[in-house]
């Protein structure tokens, strides 16, 4: 599917989506509440069929957080990048997509571990890399650790 068609397709599901082309991919920024519906729609529709989630990233911005989903369709060969904007930095929450792509289960645990974004309805949301009693979320920009981190 061409980028323009894809754009219309996403707009028909989420009218408030914003688009941007960077890094060779089309980026669609959507509110976090609409993400799950849009992802399910794109995964299951015959004309889009995004069945391969190849990257799931959490990003910490000064005033909000985003979760970035890189999607590809193995049958049609087209790509799209979905960005879910989470307004709150204190209590970031978003619906899980692990029921749509199974690989998201691990990736979401990683994002939870390092950014503290809570994925609702996730089957097993625990820290994956760090100890269970670790305080704080180290990949956030305001994370301070006087004991371990030696600043250069």
């Amino acid at each position: 599917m061409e980028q323009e068609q894809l754009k219309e397709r996403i707009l028909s599901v989420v009218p408030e989506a914003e688009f941007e082309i960077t890094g060779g991919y089309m980026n669609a920024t959507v509110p976090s509440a609409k993400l799950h519906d849009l992802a399910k729609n794109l995964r299951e529709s015959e004309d889009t069929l995004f069945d391969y989630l190849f990257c799931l990233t959490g990003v910490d911005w000064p005033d909000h957080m985003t979760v970035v989903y890189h999607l590809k369709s193995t049958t049609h060969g087209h790509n799209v990048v979905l960005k879910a904007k989470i307004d709150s930095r204190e209590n970031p929450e978003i619906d899980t997509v692990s029921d749509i792509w199974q690989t998201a289960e691990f990736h979401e645990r990683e994002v939870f571990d390092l950014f503290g974004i809570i994925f609702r309805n996730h089957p097993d949301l625990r820290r994956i890399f760090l100890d269970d009693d670790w305080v704080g979320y180290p990949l956030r920009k305001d994370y301070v650790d006087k004991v371990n981190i030696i600043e250069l």
Partner: protein
Amino acid sequence: MEIHNRDQTKRELLKDFPGEVHEVGSTNIVVTAMDSIINWSHANSLWPLTIGTSCYAIEMMATGASRHDWERFGTEVARSAPRQADLIVIAGTIVNKMALVLKRLYDQIADSKYVIAMGACAISRGPFYYNTYSVVNGADHVNPVQTA
């Protein structure tokens, strides 16, 4: 630990050697009983514990493989259970979560035990010195290291 020179080390190694060593030219002739030399070599061959956490593990495997072949020195087998080993080669970065495991492995090895820290990450964090939140500052913070 002070560093010995070559002759000193040799003398120290031969202190409990069961037999006489006669130097003939560039080679040595040993006069001893077969049983006692077998027992001596059993007692003095180090069996390492394989604890490879990262890149260094591959180099350690390469040391044990066909080109370099550490079995020439009596390091016959690399064991995976601490009870059978008497040398830990810490090959790789030790992070906070792994430090507890390493400490337990060290405690489980029977005396006398030796530790070799191999590579920059194990000796002193190496590339992971600055701006990292999870790496232990050198393996000697976890257990004593005899050789780095």
